C-alpha cells in the first residue's frame, strides 16, 4: 500500500482546466436557473390557474427525477429532433432546468415576503405592473434570496460532476483522464474530493459576504 500524492503534480494544469470548465458551466447554469426560476415563480403566483398548474408540474417533475436521467434525456434526445448541441451547452441547459425548479421556490418565497405596503406605494404612483415587477419586486426578492440561491449554486457544483458522463472534461472528467494516465485512482479521487469540498466552502463564504453587502443598505442601522 503506497500513498504518493506527488504523482499528481504534473497534471495539476490539466485538472485546473477541468475546474475552470466546471466553474463556467455552473455560473452559466446559475444564471439560467435564476431566469428560469423567476419565470416559473411568476407563473406560480399568476392569476391563471392553467399557468399555475404547468409551473407546479414542472417543479414537481424536475425535483423527483434523478439528474442523470434528465441529462441523458436531453443529451440523447435532442439530436433525435434535429438539435445537435455540444456536451457543454447540453450540460448547462440540463443544469439550468434542474436548478430552475429549486430556484423558483426560493424566488417565489422571496416575492411573497415583500411588504404589501411597498407594492401599494408603487401602484398608486402610477407605475405599470411590468415596472413594479422588474424595478421593485424582483430586486428585493433576489436580495433576500441570496443565501438559499447560494445553496442551489453549491448543489449545482456537486451535481456538475455528473456531466462527466456525457464526455465533458470538467473537473471530474479531467480527473478520470488523469487516473487513466497515472494508474493512481485513490490519490486522484481523494484529492478531487477535497478540492470539491474546498470549492463549496469558498463559495459559501462568498455567498455570506455577498448577502451582507447586498442587504447592508436594507438592514436597520444600529442607532
Amino acid at each position, binding site marked *: 500500500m503506497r500513498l504518493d500524492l506527488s504523482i499528481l503534480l504534473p497534471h495539476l494544469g490539466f485538472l485546473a482546466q477541468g475546474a475552470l470548465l466546471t466553474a463556467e458551466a455552473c455560473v452559466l447554469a446559475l444564471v439560467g436557473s435564476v431566469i428560469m426560476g423567476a419565470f416559473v415563480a411568476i407563473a406560480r403566483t399568476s392569476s391563471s390557474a392553467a399557468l399555475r398548474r404547468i409551473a407546479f408540474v414542472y417543479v414537481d417533475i424536475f425535483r423527483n427525477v434523478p439528474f442523470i436521467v434528465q441529462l441523458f434525456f436531453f443529451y440523447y434526445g435532442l439530436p433525435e429532433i434535429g438539435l445537435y448541441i455540444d456536451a457543454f451547452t447540453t450540460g448547462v441547459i440540463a443544469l439550468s432546468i434542474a436548478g430552475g425548479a429549486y430556484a423558483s421556490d426560493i424566488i417565489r418565497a422571496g416575492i411573497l415576503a415583500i411588504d404589501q405596503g411597498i407594492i401599494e*406605494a408603487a401602484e398608486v404612483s402610477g407605475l405599470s405592473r411590468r415596472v413594479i415587477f422588474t424595478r421593485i419586486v424582483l430586486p428585493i426578492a433576489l436580495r433576500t434570496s441570496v443565501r438559499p440561491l447560494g445553496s442551489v449554486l453549491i448543489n449545482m457544483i456537486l451535481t456538475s460532476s455528473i456531466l462527466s458522463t456525457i464526455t465533458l472534461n470538467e473537473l471530474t472528467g479531467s480527473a478520470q483522464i488523469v487516473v487513466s494516465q497515472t494508474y493512481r485512482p485513490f490519490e486522484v479521487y481523494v484529492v478531487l474530493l477535497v478540492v470539491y469540498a474546498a470549492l463549496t466552502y469558498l463559495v459559501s463564504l462568498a455567498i455570506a459576504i455577498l448577502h451582507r453587502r447586498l442587504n447592508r*443598505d436594507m438592514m436597520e*442601522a444600529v442607532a
Partner: protein
Amino acid sequence: MIKVENVKKAFGQTTVLDGIDLTIEPGEVVSILGSSGSGKSTLIRCINGLEKLNGGQITVDEFDVGKPRELAEARKRSGTVFQLFNLYPHMTVLGNITLAPIEVLKKPRAEAEATALALLESVGLGSRADAYPAQLSGGQRQRVGICRALAMQPRYLLLDEVTSALDPEMTAEVLAILAKLAQEGTTMLFVTHEVEFARQISDRIVFLDKGRLLVDLPTQEFFAADGGMAQPRVAQFLSKMRKD
C-alpha cells in the same frame, strides 16, 4: 375635483363604507376625522384605487377610478402618503423620489433629480439624498414619502394617518411641512387623529362614524356648539381625543 358619490365598500360580511358622498375642490384642505373602524383609511384607499368599490362611484377630475383605463389617469393626478411610509428599501432616497417621474411621466433623469433635490431641500433633507431608508429616522422617512408623492406634481395629495407611526417630536416636524404645503395652496385630503392640527389648517372637516358621513362642515362651524358639536357622536369623539 374629486367626487365621491354614494360609495359603498364591504370586506366580506362587514360593511365599512355605507353610502359616502363627498366633494373636494382644488385648493381645499379637508380633514377626515373619526374613530378607528369608521372607514376613514378605506375611503382614501378607494380614492387612489387600492380598494375596489362595492357600490357608488369615485371620479378624480372626471376620471372614474372604477374603470381600469381611467384609473391610470386618475392616479397621475393624486399622490398618496402612507402611515407606514412604504419607501422602497433597496433604493436611495433620491431613487425613491425619482422612480415614478422617470418611469411614468417620462422625465429625463437630470430633470427628475433636480426636482427631487429641490423637494428634499424644502423639507430639510437636502444632504440625505444618497442615504437608504433604513438609515433614516421615522420622521425623515415620512418627509421622503411626502417628497416622493409631490415629485409627481399631483393635483391632490392624499394623506393616510401620516403621523400616527411617529413620536411627538417627529410628528411636529412632519406637521410643520404639511402646514406649509397647505399654505402654498396644495389640495389635501387628510385622514388624521391630530384634531388640533386639523383645526388649524383645514378648510373643512368631515366626520365619519361606522361607515357613514355624519358631518361635513367648514372648520369653524364644525367645532361650534350648535354646528358639528351638536352631533352627540362628534362631541363624544372629541372629548375622548382631548383626554388622550
